């Protein structure tokens, strides 16, 4: 019977779980390779934001919702420079962002947010620093979103008539 390397067992113990429970899936997969490497410098930058959630990656860009003390906003991080970039005109103190998606160029962001008791979907163009509402037709409440890499198509999870549906919307 094959034995797990002692170093791997020690690592599994450090995970705080029974070694067999952790190692079995890894060994069964037979293809896990080495563990992924967290981007240390970026992690420290993200920690400075406070709590963060709803990540959306597009290679160079990471969009997320983050903040401290209950005040959350959309944050766009340039992963090459490991720095957030300004998003003038997007965030406002009376709006609560719920989900965000970003295209590969980091130019278009789509945001689901709650404002004045309504849940709305908006498109933000960085070059214009402008927001544009995206109406749900037929009417529905948007929740989760995904943007094609070129930013020209959007998939939206919509609550409509008591069911969850997915709409595909072409973005001009």
């Amino acid at each position, binding site marked *: 019977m094959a034995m797990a390397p002692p170093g791997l067992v020690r690592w599994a113990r450090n995970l705080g779980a029974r070694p067999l429970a952790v190692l079995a899936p890894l060994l069964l997969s037979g*293809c896990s390779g080495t563990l992924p490497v967290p*981007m240390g410098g970026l992690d420290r930058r993200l920690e400075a934001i406070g709590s963060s959630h709803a990540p959306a990656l597009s290679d160079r860009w990471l969009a997320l919702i983050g903040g401290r003390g209950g005040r959350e906003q959309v944050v766009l991080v340039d992963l090459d420079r490991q720095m957030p970039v300004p998003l003038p005109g997007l965030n406002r103190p009376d709006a609560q962002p719920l989900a965000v998606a970003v295209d590969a160029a980091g130019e278009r962001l789509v945001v689901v947010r709650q404002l004045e008791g309504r849940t709305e979907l908006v498109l933000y163009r960085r*070059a214009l620093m402008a927001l544009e509402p995206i109406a749900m037709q037929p009417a529905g409440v948007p929740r989760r979103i*995904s943007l094609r890499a070129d930013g020209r*198509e959007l998939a939206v999870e919509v609550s409509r008539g008591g069911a969850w*549906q997915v709409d*595909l919307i072409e973005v001009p």
Partner: protein
Amino acid sequence: MRSVAVTSALIALLCSGCGSWSWGRRSAGPAGLGASNRQDPALSGDGRVLASVVERGGRDTLLLQEQPSGRELPLRHLRRFQPHRSPSLSWNGRYVAVLIQQGSRRLAVIEDRVNGNLLRFPLPGDQEVERLSLAPSGRRLALEVVHNGINRVQVFDLANQLEPDLPAGMLSGGGAPAAAGR
């Protein structure tokens, strides 16, 4: 250069009529027999594959479909370990990242549709993964992790784990998922 971009964007905005009423829309189509709900949509970078989560046999299950035909695409490992949530796709849909349930733990995994490999991301026992997002190239993975009641996004570098899945014309090896049922 930036002024050209601004002008182009303004023209696009004007041509669109400044109203979302003119935007093309369609439903993602049927999700299969008995599936009345479809959630958690994720488009591949090229838009030709749509992942979503539908209820099958009472369990939230990942559904992968070619667009716009709606043809279901096969998955090797992800027909079990439900409930599935938070799918994310690479550029050509070669890599499918999703959260699965294994025993009492939620686990982030990536299925490679070309070679059938499954890459797993176990977290320390006091952390739980909530959401994920895979970069279109497959070079990075973002995980939303809950630790001590605080949600935090962490980004992992996969350059040494996955070969890139790049747009057509930029392929550096077996990037196209032709062998995976497309």
